[in-house]
């Protein structure tokens, strides 16, 4: 009895020591963002809502042609979201601005995957089917995907769409950043190449930030002093300039902390090197051997 108890505390002590070590040395979370990714800067003051980007996106990515491609009025009556047939859509917003003739001025905003620097979807994906590439593109590999849709739950921009009508081989559908094109020298994403008003500027993210800040500075009173995507969820490859508050064009207000930071920090401090399960196993085994010895001890028979 005495021996078993001493033994028990010995095991408990060992387990305790093993828990203290890795917990103390658990590494702080660090960003896994690529050093010098590409990006796009969307200038909402330049967009005229021609929807050429939608058409070109569909062509390049072999998606069905957009609904009424030449329509620039009734199509905007309902707000649309990217879906399994369209990686990008343009919406029209009336934000309260009026022109000299007292007519409301529309603002057009294109939506697509933001290609986050530290994407929640990549952190969440159970099989690593989503990856953040050096180019900045968040890429999807259908051959690994099991269809759990955790990426869709995780995405703060509600971007990944699902082929809900495919019973056997549905895919997650989202903007590819035209990876096959931008990974080649001089390649542009379909939408950025076609835009007639140069509302979409493609380039290195660091350069685009400079361009954006310069544009804000040189046009006083036009732009908000805020590049959407510079800091949102730790930064995104796609960024926006606007003269109207971003919330009014359905670009949600987001914290500057990368979405995966908290969950990865908690998860890794609990389970790195499996220290906690191993420690728990040790403690429970110690308990079990102690109670077993007590039960085997004739003096303790029946005393449960």
């Amino acid at each position, binding site marked *: 009895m005495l021996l078993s108890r001493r033994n028990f505390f010995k095991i408990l002590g060992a387990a305790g020591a093993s828990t203290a070590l890795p917990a103390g040395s658990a590494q702080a979370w660090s960003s896994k963002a690529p050093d010098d990714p590409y990006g796009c800067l969307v200038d909402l003051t330049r967009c005229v809502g021609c929807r050429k980007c939608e058409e070109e996106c569909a062509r390049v990515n072999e998606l069905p042609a957009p609904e009424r491609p030449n329509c620039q009025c009734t199509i905007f009556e309902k707000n649309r*979201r990217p*879906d*399994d047939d369209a990686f990008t859509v343009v919406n029209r917003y009336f934000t309260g601005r009026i022109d000299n003739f007292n007519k409301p001025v529309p603002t057009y905003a294109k939506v697509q995957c933001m290609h986050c620097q530290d994407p*929640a979807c*990549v*952190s*969440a*994906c*159970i*099989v*690593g*089917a989503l990856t953040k590439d050096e180019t900045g593109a968040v890429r999807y590999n259908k051959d*690994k*995907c*099991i*269809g*759990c*849709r*955790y990426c*869709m*739950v*995780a995405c*703060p921009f*509600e971007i*990944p*769409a*699902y*082929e*809900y*009508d*495919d*019973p*056997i*081989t*549905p895919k997650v559908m989202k903007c590819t950043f035209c990876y096959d094109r931008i990974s080649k020298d001089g390649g542009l994403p379909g939408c950025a190449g076609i835009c007639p008003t140069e509302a979409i500027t493609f380039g290195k993210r660091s350069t685009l930030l400079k361009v954006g800040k310069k544009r804000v500075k040189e046009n006083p009173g036009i732009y908000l002093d805020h590049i959407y995507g510079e800091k949102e969820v730790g930064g995104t490859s796609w960024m926006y300039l606007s003269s109207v508050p971003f919330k009014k064009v359905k670009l*949600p207000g*987001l*914290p500057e*902390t990368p*979405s*995966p930071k*908290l*969950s*990865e920090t*908690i*998860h*890794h401090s*609990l*389970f790195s090197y499996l220290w906690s*399960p191993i420690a*728990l*196993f040790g403690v*429970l*085994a110690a*308990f*079990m051997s102690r*109670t*077993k010895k007590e*039960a085997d001890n004739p003096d303790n028979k029946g005393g*449960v």
Partner: protein
Amino acid sequence: MKAAPLNKKFWTPGVLVMLCFMIAGAIAILGRFTGGIGYVTNLSNARPWGLWVGVDVATGVALAAGGFTTAALAHIFGRHHYESVTRPALLTAALGYTFVVLGLLVDIGRSWAIWKPMFNWNFNSVLFEVAMCVMIYLNVLYIEFLPIVAEQFKDRVNLPGMLSSLNSLVNWILKTGDAILNKTMWIFIILGVVLSCMHQSSLGSLMLVAPTKLHPLWYTPLLPLMFLASAIAVGYPMVIFETTIATSSFKLDPEMDILTPLTRFTIYLLGFYLLIKTGDMIYRKTWVYLLDGTYQTNSFLVEMICGIALPWVMLLFNRVRQSRTGIFIAACLIIGGVVLNRVNVFIVGYKPPISEGTYFPAVGEMLVTFGLIATLMFIYRIAVTFLPVLPGSREVNV
């Protein structure tokens, strides 16, 4: 006191009702695998998880916690008094996890690819850890159940017709397995508890990756602790619930001498859960939402008051603890509270930041869920009828 197969009629009206639900569920599943997930569900791009994840998976895992909590109590902490409830709890856990996996197979888009996480590891993914634990734990549960099968059929294997030539082989497997497990069972018992603690808590971590999408009443860094605490707290109430249903439907001894002392643990376990939930609400000042009248807040209030506080207060009274009806009602409230918590975290409290519109499960989704639950109950009934699970010798003749 020894567990024994039931000697009861199998086909009762209740069983036939279960059969109807099973058939309806099977038709809905057929629809899902011919027309796609969108054909039978109200899921959308903004609402990718619904009833199947919230109930079939998250709630299923939580309510199967009776398996590891009773095993820990009786086998690890040596309270052998409670051994008679470990077998039914183990059966429920084994069936519960089997149906979690079946529910997942219906819910995930590429069911045939469910094996892929075994070879494609993403250590940053909370879901990866959950999947690995659930997969291993399901096998551990089957292993823990094997001695019960062996006890019934050892040296009595009598397969029908063509299969009879396999009799001696099956018998040999049963006997060898049983002999090996006799020596090594302690490993599986502890492993079961460890794996349960891991994935029960990690199920709570799932939503931490979406800080802007879960209502602040539920979004807290303590979510994993809360999921673990509630799973442990609901373990014994599940045992009370099942035992009361089983003993009254099969007219067996109500086992109050075991259930009443079990509720004393529940006071502490549920009290701890209530404490961290309340403390977290005060610390993060989320009580400011409590009276805003939205359906999320109301759902939170029902969860906290009817699902945790009320049954906790009930169990403080000796009169309730001694009453079969009293503990059954308390157990139902606690179970309801945990079910509602999982539904709240995965469905009610989930608000897509951009899209509008709410989600309510489609008839097809409900048919699948009810069908799976009915099948689970059906197999439970088969198992207790033919295997030594419930304490049979104390049967009461009415």
